[in-house]
């Protein structure tokens, strides 16, 4: 499986990263109109004015609680949802404006791995149909023999037996199913994959297997990942940079080392201390920042800074003005009125 089309420099992602932007997300907004049970109309601002870049070959993590908009953002980038406003520029082409036929070409370059390996595979299709369907849609197999050969290679690549091709999803464990999902995603030789909580539904002992497989695929096929997760431990391990989302906004975006060492946004700080630490000595000693309350409803978000209702440092200005998403130190973006002063 060579990735013929990508022109990524062979020097590996670390050096290539800073120069090559693969995807630019500009002021992306994704609103949903809903009707409440009493028939009142309302708008959910699931993703609200988000701007960032994804560099070629990197793994960009997106973390946040449920309802923060991380999955919606991932889906809007692939135009699974039609964005309300803003632009997504993939290798220089604005894909938000593309017509259906043209879009298909870009869909081939952008794939999605889902959270739930039980719901994301059709129970009535065999593994070879599931993986083969992707090949068929994009006409990647020249003959029946070629198709079968390609499927076998893909299965081997993700660590499944080739005899598995004729079996159905129910015959596999969660980890194996997730491998099928990975095989399906890489079948079309994509450049970019959104991994949406790819290990959350799996048992702890299986998670590491799947993370390793994803990392191997990235190395071999020069993939770029957007890695969505609520597990900060997994994100730290896999991601080069991490964006923290809260109520539809990215509140902090920085290299992952820096995020864990020097978080500037109070939400990130609280989130980091909330992670259960698998070491009793550290866990029993440390001081947790326990946030008050819960994430507010996205139908009726707070004015100004959306985090202010739970923020231990909130002042008057936070109520009135939305903090700007600004750079504090090289490549460290934060949206907080008091960034660096807390």
């Amino acid at each position, binding site marked *: 499986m060579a990735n013929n089309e990508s022109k990524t420099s062979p020097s590996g992602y670390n050096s290539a990263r800073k120069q090559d932007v693969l995807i630019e997300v500009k002021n992306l907004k994704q609103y949903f109109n809903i009707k409440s049970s009493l028939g009142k109309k309302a708008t959910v601002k699931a993703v609200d004015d988000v701007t960032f870049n994804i560099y070629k070959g990197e793994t960009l993590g997106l973390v946040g609680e449920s309802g923060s908009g991380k999955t919606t953002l991932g889906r809007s980038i692939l135009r699974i949802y039609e964005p309300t406003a803003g632009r997504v520029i993939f290798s220089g082409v604005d894909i938000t404006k593309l017509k259906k036929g043209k879009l298909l070409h870009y869909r081939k370059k952008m794939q999605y791995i889902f959270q739930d390996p039980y719901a994301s595979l059709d129970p009535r299709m065999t593994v070879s149909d599931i993986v083969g369907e992707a090949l068929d849609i994009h006409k990647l197999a020249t003959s029946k023999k070629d198709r079968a050969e390609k499927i076998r290679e893909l299965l081997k690549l993700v660590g499944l037996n080739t005899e598995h091709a004729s079996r159905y999803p129910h015959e596999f464990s969660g980890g194996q199913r997730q491998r099928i999902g990975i095989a399906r995603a890489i079948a079309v030789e994509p450049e970019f994959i959104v991994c949406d909580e790819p290990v959350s539904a799996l048992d702890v002992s299986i998670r*590491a297997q799947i*993370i390793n497989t994803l990392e191997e695929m990235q190395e071999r096929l020069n993939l770029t990942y957007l890695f969505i997760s609520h597990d900060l431990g997994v994100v730290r391990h896999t991601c080069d940079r991490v964006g923290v989302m809260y109520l539809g906004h990215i509140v902090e975006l920085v290299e992952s080392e820096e995020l864990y060492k020097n978080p500037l946004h109070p939400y990130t700080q609280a989130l980091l201390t909330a992670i259960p630490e698998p070491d009793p000595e550290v866990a029993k000693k440390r001081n947790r920042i326990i*946030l008050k309350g819960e994430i507010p409803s996205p139908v009726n978000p707070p004015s100004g800074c959306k985090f202010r209702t739970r923020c231990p440092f909130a002042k008057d200005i936070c109520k009135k003005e939305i903090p700007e998403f600004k750079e504090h130190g090289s490549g460290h973006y934060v949206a907080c009125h008091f960034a660096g002063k807390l």
Partner: protein
Amino acid sequence: MNKELLKINDLKVSFFTPAGEVKAVNGISYSLEPGKVLGIVGESGSGKSVSSYSIMGLIDKPGKIVGGSIVFDGKDVSTMTKAERLNFAGNEVAMIFQDPMTCLNPVFTIGNQIAESLIHKYGKISKEELKKRSIELLTLVGINEPEKRLAQYPHEFSGGMRQRVMIAMALAGSPKLLIADEPTTALDVTIQAQILELLKDIQKKTGMAIILITHDLGIVADMADDIIVMYGGKIVEQGSVYSIFNSPRHPYTKGLLRSLPDLNKKGEKLIPIQGNPIDLLNLPKGCSFAPRCGNCMKVCINHMPEEYSTEDGHRVSCWLYDSRANNNAEVKNNG
């Protein structure tokens, strides 16, 4: 007076399904002292929940306790009459579950549901007393404006708040033991931190014992005094929280700890446990972890390991700790 609050001896629970007998819990023994927090760790199918359900008497057809005994505070749970058991569950032992969304009845107010637990404990009590105690309970679990909240229905509460209500209901009977089955798995991290903090706080105030069932090693590291690691319906290792984390003995525990993405080390490849989760319908003849174990010996495939005690009060079921095993065992363990 009995020093042990709970003593489980060789407990076996099976489910008789059309496909055959599933030995969900296959001979486990442990004891728990009053006021201690015991963490039970394991993956899905390890039997961690089933073993605790059997304490509460929640095993229903096609499941059955097929062997062993459960002694709580000197009383044998399995020989209790129906009336005794009714009084036991709720007042002596209470339980909270993973999914607070499905555990509350949507058509009754929170006040109604808490009152039910209180009446179960105290029998006839006056309306004023009921209200006073309900408000106390909601305050204890950190719910603001308890008076107003009592009149509300479950759908008006968020996930974290519902779990707080569940905890309040569990506390209504002032139990000596609280069984918490994955109490925070359905919640977000920041809410999880709130609930764990609350449980710790309540444990300190009331002095009750807690059995905390989870798949998350981070949670037990913080909360538990002792830890039991389960795999394939058996306890593979038990010991104090420090000895389990600092010197794990069983290859499965070692593998679990090694496969965690370490917050402090980035870039290193994770070392996964090989293979797939166990199939309870086709348990291996010997050690159930043998097919996935890097240290598997001939004896492991054919014979169930015994339990060995180590000097730090740790107990482990693994042939590597048999005196007949190769002395290189410890060295090989790194592989």
